C-alpha cells in the first residue's frame, strides 16, 4: 500500500513539475537573438536578404522585425497567411516576413488593421508547401506600435 502511495505521489509530483515547466515556457517571453527592429533600414534590408539567401545560419533563432501588418487568405483552401511587410531605405525593395501568431486569432479579419505599424517576434522556421520552401516566424507575438 505504502509503495503504491509513494508511486502515486511521485507520479503526481512529476506531472505537476511538467505542467509548471510547460506553463513557464508558454508565458516566458522569447529571448531575442536578432533584433532587426532597432537596426537601420540599410542593415535590415541586408539582413533579410541574407536570411532568405542563406537561411541555415538563422534557423531556430528568435528574430524581431518591425514593419506593416498584412494578411492574405488563400481562396482555394481558406488558409490564412500573416505577414510583416518591411520597407527599406529606398522604398522600392520591400520585403515580407510571414509569421504564425502564438495563438490563432479568433477573428483573423479583424485581428489587426491592415498596414498597422507592428513589431513581430518569433522563431525562424522553414516549411515546404507545394514543393517550395518558405520561411516564417512561428510562435510569434505581435505588438502594434503607437504612432510616434
Amino acid at each position, binding site marked *: 500500500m505504502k509503495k503504491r502511495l509513494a508511486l502515486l505521489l511521485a507520479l503526481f509530483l512529476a506531472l505537476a513539475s511538467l505542467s509548471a515547466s510547460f506553463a513557464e515556457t508558454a508565458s516566458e517571453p522569447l529571448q531575442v537573438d536578432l533584433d532587426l527592429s532597432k*537596426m*537601420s533600414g540599410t542593415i535590415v*534590408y541586408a539582413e533579410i536578404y541574407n536570411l532568405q539567401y542563406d537561411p541555415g545560419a538563422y534557423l531556430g533563432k528568435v528574430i524581431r522585425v518591425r514593419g506593416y501588418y498584412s494578411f492574405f487568405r488563400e481562396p482555394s483552401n481558406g488558409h490564412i497567411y500573416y505577414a510583416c511587410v518591411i520597407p527599406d531605405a*529606398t522604398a522600392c*525593395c520591400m520585403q515580407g516576413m510571414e509569421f504564425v501568431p502564438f495563438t490563432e486569432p479568433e477573428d483573423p479579419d479583424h485581428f489587426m488593421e491592415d498596414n498597422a505599424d507592428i513589431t513581430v517576434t518569433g522563431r525562424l522556421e522553414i516549411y515546404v508547401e507545394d514543393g517550395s520552401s518558405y520561411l516564417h516566424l512561428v510562435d510569434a507575438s505581435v505588438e502594434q506600435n503607437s504612432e510616434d
Partner: protein
Amino acid sequence: MIDTLMTYLQFPYVRYALIVGVLIALCSSLLGVTLVLKRFSYIGDGLSHVAFGAMAVAGVLHLSNNMLLVLPVTMICAILLLRPGRNARIKGDAAIAMISVGALAVGYLLLNIFKSSGNLAGDVCTTLFGSMSILTLRPAEVWLCFGLSIAVIILFLFFYNRIFAVTFDEDFARATGTKADAYNLLIATVIAVIIVLAMNLVGSLLISALIIFPAMSAMRVFKSFRSVTVCSAVLSVCCALAGLLISILAGTPTGSTIVAADIAAFLVCCGIAKLQRRTVS
C-alpha cells in the same frame, strides 16, 4: 553611435562592403582623371547602361554568374566607343548616347517581358541606383571584385607614364613611338571593368559621379597630373567610406549617399580653390 557602428561591423557583409567600396572608389578615381582630361566624362554613364542591358540579358538567360556576359559586352562597347573616331560614321557623343539609351531601353524591355522575380521594380531600382547591392555581396563576388580591383591598380601603376602621354597628347605620343591605339584599348578595357564593378556600389545611373566628381574636385585644388590623381584617389576613397558609413548608420540608400559625399567634397574643393586664388592675388 560608435557602439551601433561596432555592432554593424560584426556583420561580415558590412566588412565586405567597406573593402569592396574602397577598392572600387580607388579604381574609378584613378581612371577618372584620364577620362575627364580626354573629354570622355560621359562614357561611364553610357557604359553603365550597356552593363545594365547585359545584366538584363544575363537574367533572362538565367546565368548563374552574370559577370560572364556583362564584362565582355561592356568591354566590347568600351572599345567601340573609345577607338579613334576619325573614320567612324557615328561620332563621339552621339555614339555614346545611342548605345546608352539603346541598352537601357532593351534591358528594361527584356526584364519586363521575361520577369524572373515578383519584384521587378525592386530589381530595376537596385540595379539602377545600387540601393543596397553592395551589402548583399557573396564571398565569391568579393574575391572577384578584389582581384579585378588589384589588377586595375597594378595596370595603372605599371603603365602610368604611357597613360599620361596618351591622355595629354595622343598625336605626340604616337609620333614618339608610343602605341596609342593599344593604350586606348587598355584604357577602354580597364574602364569597362571598373564600370561593371562600380554597378554594385552605386548602381548604373550614378557611376559617372564616382568617375567624375573626385577627378574634378582634385583639379580644383591641384594642377599636376600626379597630384590630381593622388588627390582624386584619396578623396574618392574617403567619400566612399563616409557615404557607406552614413548609409549604414542612417539607413539611407548607399549609392546616392556616396554620391552626396562626393558632391560635398567637390564643393569644399571649390571653396579651397577660391581661397587659393584670393591668397595668390
